[in-house]
């Protein structure tokens, strides 16, 4: 019973990590119709920025999150403006390939700079937790969870309450009409992609505190993001949050399914993915 409660807590906290991982990916997919295969690499870049600032300047990992966001926003903006905008009207398969190429380049640049050593940020307060009877709530994971939800809330506000958000929504619903009312398409696309990358940067900063990172660690994150978005559905922040939490539950409890075990974790996750795709392609909350 206490194990069940502990698993549940971990599943929900893990879900928070997935929300952070998926939220930028979902935005870019929903608005630009790009499956951003370099999303995982962005996350890793964010993680390395946090790691560097922590190692060199002793900056608390949670304080470096805004810096991650800003740096990744700039990177994302420039990439979209300079590169991806040029094939945005080509078949979706091409943007997929292009972002794969970008991913390859980023990962290997990171390898050249940071080597493939595993890094992890371990602030002094790591490992402390709130103990509720037999259940432990690790404080770093709890903080990461809270920040992931805060990030989702901020993004939601940005999309609904600001001019930028309105422009992004307009571009997503009707490109030509948006252009007619004076929205700069290139700029708006680049903004969207930049915001998506910034979210990835924050996710990376969070991940560096709970997991070990290396330049090649990004691919699983891209896949996780994809699964989360498919589960929740495209097009809203809420859907991503639901998808992320659900995926956390599936991961944790799928592993303890009798007769299967953790060795099948990916198989279980993808089986769920394929079933959802076939039964309800728009996702659980998708339109």
């Amino acid at each position, binding site marked *: 019973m206490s*194990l069940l409660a502990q698993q549940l807590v971990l599943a929900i906290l893990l879900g928070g990590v997935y929300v952070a991982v998926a939220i930028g990916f979902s935005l870019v997919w929903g608005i630009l119709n790009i499956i951003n295969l370099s999303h995982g690499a962005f996350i890793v870049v964010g993680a390395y920025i946090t790691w560097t600032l922590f190692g060199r300047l002793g900056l608390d990992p949670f304080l470096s999150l805004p810096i991650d966001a800003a740096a990744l926003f700039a990177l994302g903006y420039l990439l979209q403006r300079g590169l991806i905008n040029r094939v945005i009207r080509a078949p979706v398969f091409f943007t997929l390939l292009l972002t794969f190429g970008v991913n390859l380049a980023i990962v290997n640049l990171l390898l050249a700079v940071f080597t493939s050593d595993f*890094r*992890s940020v371990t602030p002094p307060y*790591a*490992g402390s937790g709130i103990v509720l009877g037999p259940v432990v709530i*690790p404080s*770093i994971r709890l903080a990461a969870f809270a920040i992931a939800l805060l990030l989702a809330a901020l993004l939601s506000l940005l999309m609904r309450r600001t001019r930028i958000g309105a422009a992004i929504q307009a571009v997503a619903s009707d490109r030509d009409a948006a252009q007619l009312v004076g929205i700069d398409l290139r700029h708006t696309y680049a903004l969207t992609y930049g915001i998506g990358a910034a979210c990835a940067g924050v996710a990376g900063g969070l991940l560096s505190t709970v997991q070990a990172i290396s330049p090649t660690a990004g691919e699983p994150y891209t896949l996780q993001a994809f699964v989360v978005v498919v589960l929740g559905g495209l097009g809203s922040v809420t859907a991503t949050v639901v998808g992320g939490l659900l995926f956390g539950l599936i991961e944790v409890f799928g592993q303890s399914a009798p007769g299967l*075990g953790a060795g099948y974790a990916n198989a279980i996750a993808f089986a769920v993915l394929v079933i959802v795709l076939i039964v309800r392609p728009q996702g659980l909350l998708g339109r």
Partner: protein
Amino acid sequence: MSLTGSTSNEGNLSKQGYDMWLSWINDQGGITVGGVKHKVQIKYEDDQSKPDLSAQLMQKLITEEKAQFILGPYGSPATASDAVIAEKNQIPMVEANGAAQAIFNKGYKYTFGVLSPANKYLTGVIDMAATLSPKPTTIAMLSADDNFSVEVAQGVADYAATKGMKVAFDQKYPNGSTDVSSLVAQAKAANPDILMNSGHLAEAIAINKAAKDLGVNAKILAYSVGPSTPQFIKALGKDADYVYDGSQWTPQVKYTPAFYLGEADYVKAYKTMFKTQDDPDYHVAESTAACLALQKAIENAGSLDAQKVRDALAKLDVTTFFGQIKFDSRGLNIYKPMVVEQIQNGQHHTVFPQDVADTKPQYPTPPWAQR
């Protein structure tokens, strides 16, 4: 050799080990064959941590660079692929970085491993645990699902019972898993005296973090691969303390080498050559040992003929700074014991077997809350 890609870290360490021997032997004027000294050249190719590329490059080295003998690549999958190439070309390969035993059960004649095989990786920890009091009795075993890690876990499962211990929890997770916290929670529920992981550095770090987060207060935390590297301590800081690992070699072991350097000189030479403060870890040492085995076999054979050197390897029995090197009929070095290391105050110490240990294990590991 995996100089880039997912195992580039270990690959580069192994290359350092080869280079250590190379500079030493050429300072001596080379290998003596029939009274004549032959200078040695080692050619490297970067297999990018991909087994298929490794085989391709191995063939290239043999045909284009006219490689006469092969030093193994890094990792069990690449070693398995390269063993086939060695076999097809009938060129002896001495490998130091692929411990999965399966490679040696196939009747290959040209592959020799200086390592203790995978199933021995963590049995040393069990041997040690049996000598401690209070004696731990239950083990929770987590394992990645690659061939090497599975063999390590299997070795523990087979061996624990003979020492009166019970594996209370045994789970595999996919290689490269990003989150293992729920597995650790399950392991915790089994309330083990010993928490073991058979995986890689990233997972060892993640499991140690999760163990602290969730307050898993096992008396022994032991991970197959990871803690022996300096990175493990850098990544975890004080939390790395008390962790055990099974190691092929540690700078503290004391053997009586028949030739080449002793441990202390080896460590000193390493630090000078690579301008570092870090001690050489076992990847470096085992790779140097592979070179030593090959050197000795060539000298014993008194010939550069591949067939004769192979036969000399099969008969080899020599003690080096790395320990005894002697191959069974499969080409496996089952005669060298694994040593157990523990991290104490941010330093690696050898704690078992007692005859090579430099200090006693700090046991039991204090609960996380009291550190």
